[in-house]
């Protein structure tokens, strides 16, 4: 019962804040609504006993990426931004398409076959020492080592690319 109440709270706030993110005229307010949104997503992760993901959600998304968003938005000329139209002309068409898509997806969702039940149930995670974070670490460095290394190589390429782009070209 308590779990349902919390889920309902998180779900309602997530939907409301997502709408506020795109509906606010002031981009700084949008970023702040998004901050609230990220905290509620972290709350959902906590309900699933995924405390590591919840902490990472706050540290990476709220703490680093959103601060960079805010940094860029703060440098905009807000007086001009607020005067403009909040929504583009195809707003109505886009809304109809989005609602249609939501109806199609939610009605066909039940037809999808359920995935296989893995060994990492909530009881198993609770019983492990160190909990969620230790299991994620173990799985990532044993079963999924290769995809993990590929992802880190791609990130490394992106970092080096950013440095090359940002660095002043030296005359040879």
């Amino acid at each position, binding site marked *: 019962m308590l779990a349902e109440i919390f889920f309902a709270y998180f779900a309602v706030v997530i939907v409301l804040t997502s709408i506020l993110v795109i509906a606010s005229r*002031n981009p*700084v*307010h949008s970023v*702040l609504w998004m*901050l609230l949104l990220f905290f509620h997503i972290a709350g959902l992760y906590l309900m699933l006993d995924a*405390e*590591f993901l*919840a*902490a*990472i959600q*706050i*540290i990476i998304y*709220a*703490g*680093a990426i959103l*601060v*960079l968003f*805010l*940094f860029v938005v*703060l440098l905009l000329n807000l007086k001009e931004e607020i005067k403009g139209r909040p929504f583009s002309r195809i707003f109505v068409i886009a809304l109809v398409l989005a609602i249609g898509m939501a109806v199609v997806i939610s009605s066909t969702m039940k037809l999808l076959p359920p995935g296989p039940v893995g060994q990492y149930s909530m009881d198993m995670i609770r019983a492990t020492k*160190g*909990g*969620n*974070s230790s299991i994620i670490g173990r799985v990532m460095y044993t079963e999924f080592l290769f995809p993990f290394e590929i992802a880190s190589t791609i990130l490394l390429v992106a970092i080096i690319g950013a440095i090359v782009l940002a660095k002043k070209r030296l005359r040879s």
Partner: protein
Amino acid sequence: MSIFETIIQPDTFDVLIKIGIILLKIVIVVAAAMLHVMYATYFERKSIGHMQVRLGPMEVGPHGVLQPIADGVKLFFKEDIIPADADKPVFYIAPVISLVAALSSLSVIPFFKGFVIANINIGLLFILAMSSLGAYGIIISGWASNSKYSFLGGLRSSAQVISYEIAMGLSLVGVMMMAGSLNISDIVNAQAAYPLRVYAIPQMLGFFVFMVAGIAETNRAPFDLPEAESELVAGYFVEYSGIRFAMFYLSEYIGMIVISLIAVVCFLGGWSGPFDIPYVPFAWLLLKVYFFIFFYYWIRATLPRYRYDQLMSLGWKLLIPLALLNIVITGIAKLML
């Protein structure tokens, strides 16, 4: 079945007692933190005064010991001024965000064996998450005040906090690797097996990086560029007055106490000491924290403020590589032993 029977079940009483104990712990910790902040300001003014061959506050009470109470009363009754064209809701909420972020970090820190408000498995990550939330209070207060000085202070702070958060997080990775846990109580217990019951000796590099990054995270001298009073008047909180200014002040000092507490529990063995002090289980923890607080003031009285480019190159070119080196060394040492 009446509605009372559905609400009051056999275990309801136990749950209520548990909630009561948690609330009591919160009240104790917050009250202790507030008291410490009050006297941290007094101690700062006195110790820096003596370092600069002055006396510091002397008027209110003997040797000025009642000065923090007088300051607090004054701040409470001052007018709460809002600048014209400020973004009111954001202006109101900014100091609250700062204070909440600083206070909630206290909830996962163990003060002595078995005394912690929330003994969670991701304690260290929770503290990092709260310190990144604290940056929002500073950035949006700078923006919402609609003033050049506070805006510049806010921008400087956002760049500084992002840069030093990486170094701070990486410097704690060595501790996590040695303890094999993110739970702060486990980290303190794991240190008992090491010389002097501290991690500061095997984690020398991490400790150094953590201390420098911690001073930068709390925006204290010599990294107090966001509030550089000689260039920006007071930085991000220029336009704040009265109780909202007091909230920023509180969150800065609680931030200092939190960073000192993390340094003590992660690197200096927390509540354990060379011998046990009877009846006062938190005595060693407090002594170590007071030393770090004094260390903050000592540095403030000694070093001049960094220039902005020096601050950035120190963070990115020295501290982050050192923290990475520390992780590599810790990993190799752990494999060899």
